[in-house]
């Protein structure tokens, strides 16, 4: 037929299981073991409390600028929860809750945002990339890692995170296209938190969903309620399982909200209303999950209170350790250590020049 409608490979779906009030869609409810459900809850709560604490520390000038995750706990904890240690996580800069669940220590987070390059160190055995600040640039690294995993015949996957704003970057396009071409085991988790600093999602692209962008690459795309931990786990589980058996990459758009500041240097009042924030506070991912867990008899107020105390203590210890470390004198010359495996003679001359200079000053 000379004028015909072209067939698309599949349709883009939207998934939601646990609604904002904690009511579950029985037909879609996943059968998750109790300990996993409680792990998810703990990780989300820890993420929330640690975030609140970092904000206070920053306001007190004890650490520098960072990007709060408040409201996005489910969007990152859900996908990370379905990974195993041998998988890879390639974060942006707003996945602290997810990074902690992947084994990054609170100390390293605090140290890093406290201005110490040492905080960027990733311990052996944890396959996480350090955070990536240039928006959208890290997705390609996930494709490279995933290609390597495929090349070595492993059934591990690479999972990368990024925001709604990042989908406008050329690197997003190149990463998804490359992933589609080689059908690599990569999962692209877009935390659509509705804002890229002051730019609302609607101004970022004319497309009504970000998930549909996957159609450009014949890559699977799904839009998920990102504040619904059950939906996030289910969607991520499906994507990861497909990837492990060689069925290729998936783009997951997690529809969530940045309840806090863009970074501690930001003033959201300039560009968004309190009403909008209030609206999303009703959709809080943690509150609704607690309703669900209570209904299932897996959690009660006493247990929550105990957990809060336990978490508070953990955070306190981490802060204390970090501040003790920060109180020690810094070795300024250490900044010369990791630009190259072997510093050049001229670089060593510069290091020596600085050493002498510092001695002269002291």
């Amino acid at each position: 037929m000379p004028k015909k409608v072209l067939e698309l490979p599949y349709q883009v779906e939207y998934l939601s299981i646990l609604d904002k009030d904690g009511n579950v869609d029985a037909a879609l409810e996943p059968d998750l073991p109790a300990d996993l459900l409680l792990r998810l809850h703990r990780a989300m709560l820890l993420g929330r409390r640690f975030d609140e604490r970092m904000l206070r520390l920053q306001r007190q000038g004890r650490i520098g600028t960072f990007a709060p995750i408040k409201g996005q706990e489910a969007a990152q904890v859900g996908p990370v929860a379905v990974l195993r240690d041998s998988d890879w996580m390639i974060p942006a800069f707003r996945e602290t809750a997810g990074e902690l669940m992947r084994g990054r220590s609170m100390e390293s987070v605090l140290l890093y945002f406290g201005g110490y390059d040492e905080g960027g160190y990733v311990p052996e055995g944890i396959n996480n990339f350090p955070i990536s600040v240039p928006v959208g640039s890290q997705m390609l690294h996930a494709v490279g890692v995933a290609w390597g995993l495929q090349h070595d015949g492993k059934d591990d996957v690479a999972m990368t995170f990024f925001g709604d704003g990042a989908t406008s970057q050329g690197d997003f396009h190149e990463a998804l296209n490359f992933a589609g071409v080689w059908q690599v085991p990569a999962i692209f988790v877009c935390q659509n938190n509705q804002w890229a600093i002051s730019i609302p999602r609607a101004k970022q692209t004319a497309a009504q969903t970000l998930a549909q962008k996957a159609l450009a690459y014949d890559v699977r795309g799904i839009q998920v309620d990102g504040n619904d931990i059950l939906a996030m786990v289910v969607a991520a589980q499906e994507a990861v399982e497909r990837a492990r058996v060689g069925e290729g990459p998936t783009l997951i758009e997690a529809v969530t909200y940045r309840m806090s500041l863009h970074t501690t240097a930001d003033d959201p009042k300039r560009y968004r209303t309190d009403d909008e924030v209030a609206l999303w506070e009703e959709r809080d991912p943690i509150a609704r999950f607690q309703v669900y867990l209570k209904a299932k008899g897996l959690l009660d107020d006493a247990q929550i209170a105990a957990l809060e105390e336990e978490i508070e203590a953990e955070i306190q210890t981490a802060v204390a350790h970090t501040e003790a470390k920060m109180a020690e004198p810094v070795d300024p010359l250490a900044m010369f250590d990791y630009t190259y495996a072997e510093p050049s003679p001229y670089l060593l001359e510069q290091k020596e020049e600085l050493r002498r200079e510092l001695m002269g000053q002291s």
Partner: protein
Amino acid sequence: MAKMTMVQALNLALRQEMEKDDRVIVLGEDVGRDGGVFRVTDGLLDTFSERRVLDTPLAESGIVGMSVGMAVYGLKPVAEIQFSGFIYEAFHQIESHAARLRNRSQGRYHVPLVVRAPYAGGVRALEHHSESREVYFAHTPGLKMVIPSGPRNARALLLAAIRDPDPVIFYEPKSVYRAFREEVPEEEEVFPIGKSVVARGGKDITLIAYGAMLRPTLEAAEKLKAEDGVEAEVIDLLTISPLDDALFTASARKTGRVVVVHEAHRSFGPGAEIVSRLIEKSFWYLEAPVKRVTGFDIIFPLFAREQTYLPGVERILSAARETLAV
């Protein structure tokens, strides 16, 4: 006359030029409603509406590439790259098109584009937010590279940049943004691109600096006077490319001793070209090797070590004294 910070002075320049010339368009990430993350474009959206002030999607190549099209079409885009550390996403649009369309079209078209970006260190920022890589642009034919050091010259140079028929990369030292206030005349004032100035007269040694390094350099000059009785001449480059070698080589011929100061890495840095011009044009007058006080050839450290990385008064003083001791 009003006392202003550099941020206010830049805002004034944009506001006045937009009022005067309706072909001037401001675009970039968060430059509208938010007024820019440093507030340089604060209030422009309300005054000039979305017809003149564009909040763009998050894509630097898109911002610059679109600006190139606007400029060729006949507008005068002033694009903001939120931090100079993210201008590399647009590097090909700058190098391959902004800098070349005049030559490629043999003069039929030109690209009156200004790319503004906060740059350099000193504000306890995250990775990619503290570097000084002006050389990438200074080495690129077809571009001009301007770096103001204070509110008044920032305003007067931004006006010149917007009116320049060729693309200008305009790097704003963010540690100076709110560091101090200066009298900035209400009436329009334009400083020529390609001209440096003597920030402090002297006869014994020449200290060359620009951007945020000007103030520690001036401080060092005062110390040299107070503690060593030495009269240092301090030159504020203002334009990195094209380099005003007439001014600093003349100064070198007078003093015979020169120290160059910049935050940029030393190797293949701006200082290297200054040294070369000095050798080409005042070799016989030099009584000591020219010294470079610069950032080191390493990745810019996070802020716990930032101040040791950056050239400060002490390092400038030591270099000057060693140069004078020769």
